[in-house]
Each structure stands twice: as structure tokens, then as C-alpha cells.
């Protein structure tokens, strides 16, 4: 087949892709452009390029401090959740992957069952529990439950990776006088670095996007995260379309930037995670 005939044959396929691609991009592009308009212009000229590229919507939000606070809160909570869930899961996955002990299968089944607990089921009692522990309006009130709900998926993925590491290494380490924890800490974790990266990226994205739990836990705005902030901003400035668009675009930037850097890990994690669950 010559190059030219292949080009002709794939033309309809390209057309389909361009159309689907346009549907995906247009809402995003519309938001970016609208952020550069005034709300007046937005109703006169909904989808043209801006007549004058106003940057005030964007700079106003970036200069206000409130936005940065949300970014900071989201970051703190995402990092806290990730460190906690990965550390705790790694220990558990190590034990599942490398020990034969009574009750292992029962325990593992309990964790995997956790995959199908909808968060909404636990939301009410969890809220009451956090209230009685004084963890409402406290970042720990989001970090701890997020880590707990992230355990099943993280343990399953890590266990899979840990099982692939050959048993001979373990024997060698034991002969050299390594304790179980020593092997875990000095041999297994360094070798499993790619797997740890994958589960960390998954945990960061899940935490960053979580809406339900921060909505329950944070009643005052000190600790609001980005998703809550976006929703509140829309409610507050519902008449000022252009500003809401600018806010939306800025709120998308961190997630999309992170995605472009960690794409491989994220997709790898989701595909192994999904098929192993």
C-alpha cells in the first residue's frame, strides 16, 4: 500500500476524530476566550475572539489571594492524603504479597470489598464521627477519610507490583541479616519506585478533585478546596459570566498541568487499577 492510498483511506477516520476533538475542545476554548471579555461583550459576541483582550478578570483573581489560599489548601490536603495512603498501603500490601498468614485471604477480601462501598453510604455517620472528634473545619477531617477510602485500590495495585519482585532477593536479604521491615524499607520500596509513583499520582488526582467530602467537612471558608471554591464563586458572581469563566480556567490549570506531566503514571495506574479491581 503506498503512502498516498493510505492517506485517502484514513480521511474519513480523521474527519471523525476532528469532529469529536472539536466537541471536546470547544467548551474549554470558549471558557478561555470568554475570560478575556467583559460580561457585556460576552452577550453581544459569544463566540468570536475578544474585541479587546481584557486581562482584568484573570489578573483580578490571581491578585486577590483568595484563589491562592484555595490552591494552597488543595495542595496541602492532596499531599497529606497521598503520603498517608501510600505509606499505610505499602505496609499492608507488603504483608499481603510476602507473608503466608492465617486470615490473609479474608482480610484481603475485606479490603477489596471496600472498592464498591459508595462514599455516599458512609457519608452521614462519617460526618457525625468527625463532628464528635472535633475534626470538622480541620484538614485532617478530609485527609483521614480520603486516605481510608483510597486504601483498597492502592493496596491492590501495590500488592500486584510487590509480588513481581523475585523471592531470591528476599532470601538473600534475610541471609544478610535483614529483618522483614529492613527488607521492605531497604530493598522493596526502592525497587517499587515506579509503582509508588503511579499510586501517588492517582491519590493526588482523586484528592484534588474530591468535592463531596470537603463540602461536608468545611463549613467556613478558611479550608475550602478548589472544587468548593469554584462552586461558591459561581454562586456569588452568577451575573458576571466573564469573571466566572476566568475563575474556571484558572482552576483548571493546576489539574491539566499535573496531567501533562504525569500522564503516563495516571493512565497506567487507572488501567492496572481498574483491571485488577
Amino acid at each position, binding site marked *: 500500500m503506498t503512502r498516498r492510498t493510505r492517506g485517502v483511506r*484514513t480521511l474519513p*477516520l*480523521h474527519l471523525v*476524530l476532528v469532529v469529536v*476533538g472539536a466537541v*471536546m475542545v470547544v467548551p474549554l476554548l*470558549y471558557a478561555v476566550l470568554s475570560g478575556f471579555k467583559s460580561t457585556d461583550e460576552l452577550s453581544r459576541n*459569544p463566540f468570536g475572539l475578544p474585541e479587546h483582550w481584557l486581562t482584568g478578570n484573570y489578573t483580578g483573581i490571581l491578585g486577590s489571594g483568595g484563589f491562592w489560599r484555595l490552591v494552597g489548601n488543595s495542595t496541602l490536603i492532596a499531599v497529606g492524603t497521598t503520603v498517608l495512603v501510600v*505509606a*499505610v498501603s505499602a*505496609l*499492608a500490601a507488603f*504483608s*499481603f504479597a*510476602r*507473608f*503466608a498468614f492465617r486470615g*490473609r*485471604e479474608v*482480610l*484481603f*477480601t*475485606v*479490603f*477489596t470489598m*471496600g472498592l464498591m*462501598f*459508595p462514599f*455516599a*453510604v*458512609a*457519608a*452521614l455517620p462519617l460526618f457525625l*464521627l468527625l463532628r464528635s472528634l472535633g475534626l470538622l473545619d480541620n484538614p485532617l477531617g478530609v485527609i*483521614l477519610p480520603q486516605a481510608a477510602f483510597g*486504601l483498597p485500590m492502592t*493496596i491492590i495495585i501495590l500488592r500486584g507490583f510487590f509480588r513481581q519482585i523475585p*523471592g531470591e532477593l528476599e*532470601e538473600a536479604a534475610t541471609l544478610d*541479616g*535483614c*529483618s*522483614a521491615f529492613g527488607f521492605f524499607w531497604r530493598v522493596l520500596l526502592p525497587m517499587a519506585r515506579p509503582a509508588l509513583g503511579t499510586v501517588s499520582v492517582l491519590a493526588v488526582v482523586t484528592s*484534588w*478533585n474530591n*468535592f*463531596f467530602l470537603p463540602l461536608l467537612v468545611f463549613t467556613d471558608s478558611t479550608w475550602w478546596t*478548589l*472544587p468548593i471554591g*469554584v462552586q461558591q464563586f*459561581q454562586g456569588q458572581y452568577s451575573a458576571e*459570566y466573564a469573571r*466566572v*469563566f476566568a475563575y*474556571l480556567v484558572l482552576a483548571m490549570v493546576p*489539574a*491539566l498541568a499535573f496531567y*501533562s506531566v504525569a500522564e503516563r503514571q495516571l493512565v497506567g495506574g487507572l488501567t492496572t487499577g481498574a*483491571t485488577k*479491581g
Partner: protein
Amino acid sequence: MTSTFLPDKRSGPAAGHPLPAVPPGRARTRRRTLNWLTAVGFQLPALVLFTGLVLLPVLFALYAAFFRWGGFGMPSDYVAGDNFTRLLQDDVFLGDLWRCLVLVVLSLVLQLPFALAMAVLLNQRLRGRAVYRMLFFAPYVLSEAITGVLFSMVFAPDDGLADHVLGAVGLDGLGGEWFAGPSSVMAALFLVMTWKYFGFHMMLHLAGLQSIPAELTEAALIDGAGPWQRFRNVTLPLLAPTLRISVFLSVIGAIQLFDLVWVITQGGPDHHSETMAVTMFQYGFKRYQVGYASAISVVMFGICLVFALAYQRFVLRRDLEGATTTMRGDGT
């Protein structure tokens, strides 16, 4: 599974302290106990976290569902199954079940085949496929809140992008209500869900497609099979495990749907887009009928559980080697 951590004199918690001379039988029991303690010790933090913040709350919801309770103090007003019989007469809740079914069917009939078609397309050698792949997956990375706000603006009646586009091509009659109309809200919501989630399923399918050995399709090609025959008889059967996972995730996702709905419509207009989770939230956090809201949680959980178990038993059985309940050691 073999473990090399059957503690001898050098390893385990007793390291450095030679074991006292005991009869061999007791030494073995003791060694086993130590081994068990080490293994479970590693599980401890995970167990504490999971039990305290996942299992206990779920169990407590099961308990609270049998009480009339406002959420303060401990539940004391036991009403047996009243909350559940009330659910069966609650039009909003029955509507939730119906809408859930509609979303499941739409996802399976429209969203997944679309995702599969895109995956097959992008599995070919095409110019720019990496870009398309990234692009189609990108919305999955945006939070539901951002997606929701974005589309509530895109589908704003009259002023939104969607209406302007329809107006520009002379189809004004089609637009207008979107999320504001009782009859259009679910369709509009489904469009947004497809925009956001199809890329995720496409990625799953792509991963599945790439694990199919090229020799098989080549062999079919040599045997004279056309593109459709190759897809139908080679690709599709080999992709079946991936598709079954995709179906599973779609259904569970539809049962739990909350964020998008809450951000875009809060269940409105007049409950026409409400889901089980939204109804639960309304009763539990806005109207302080915590017992009744717990009953909704329990039903949600029951549906998930029955579906998951049945699906695993009858559909996934062949696929999940080494995962979930089929694990029975690996025989080494």
C-alpha cells in the same frame, strides 16, 4: 506463596535474644505466632484506618436506618422497617431508581460503544493519535465541580454557548431549556457525563486492545477475513474482559452519581435530575432526617453489593484471576 520470613534465630522481633530452650513443638508454635504477629503488624495501620473510617461508618448507617433520628445523641426511637416502607412510597426515591436505570442503560448503549469505537480508531496508526488520546482523556482529570460549573454556563438558557451554536445553524427550537427543563435535564446531564467519562473508558479499551497479539489479527487477515469479521471474531472476544470491567465501573458510577448533579442542578428542576445520593444528602444534611437518609444509604449499598456480587459470580468469574474473592493462594 512462600515466605522466607519464617523467623529463625536471627530475624523477627526476637532478634538478638536467643530463644530459651523449649520443647520443639512449643518452639514451632511460638515461631508461628511471631510470624503471624509480624505479618499482621504491617497490616495494623491500614486496618485501623479502614475499620474506623470506612467499615464502622457503613455499619453504623445500617444500624441508624432502623431509627427515627435527627442526628444528635444516639438513635433511640426504634421504628423497625418504617424508613424502608416509607422509601417505597416516596416518589422522589422511586424516581431516583428510575433515573439510575436510565443512566445505566444510556451508558451501556451509547457511551461505552462510543468509547470502544474511539479506542479502535486510535489503536490504528494515524497521524496525531497521541494528541487525540490526550485530548479525549483530559476531561477525566478535571474535577466534577469544574466540569459542572463549566457546563452549567455552556448550557445556560439563551445566553449559553449551546444555544448560540444552535441559533447560528438555525435550530433555535432545539435549545433553550437544557438543565432547566424537566424533560431535557437528564439528556443534558448524560451529555456532560459522556464528555467527561468516555475518555476514561476509551483508555481502558485501548490498553485492552494493545494487549491483543498482532499475530492473531494478521492470521485472520491471511485467512481472508474482512475488517468487520476481524473485529467481530478476533478483537471483540479478546477484549471481552476489558469490556466487562468497563460495564462494571459504569454501573457502579451511575449508582453513586452525586458531584455533577449537585453542582449543576442540585437535583432540580423539581427533583427531575435527583439521584439517590442527592436525595440522601437532602434528607441527611438539609432536613436532619438522618435515620431516613441512612435508609437511602443502605439501599444504595444493597444495590451496589447485589450487583457487584452477581456480576462477579456470573460475569467476571473467568477474568479475575488473582483478584478479589477468587484468590486462594497461588499454589507455590
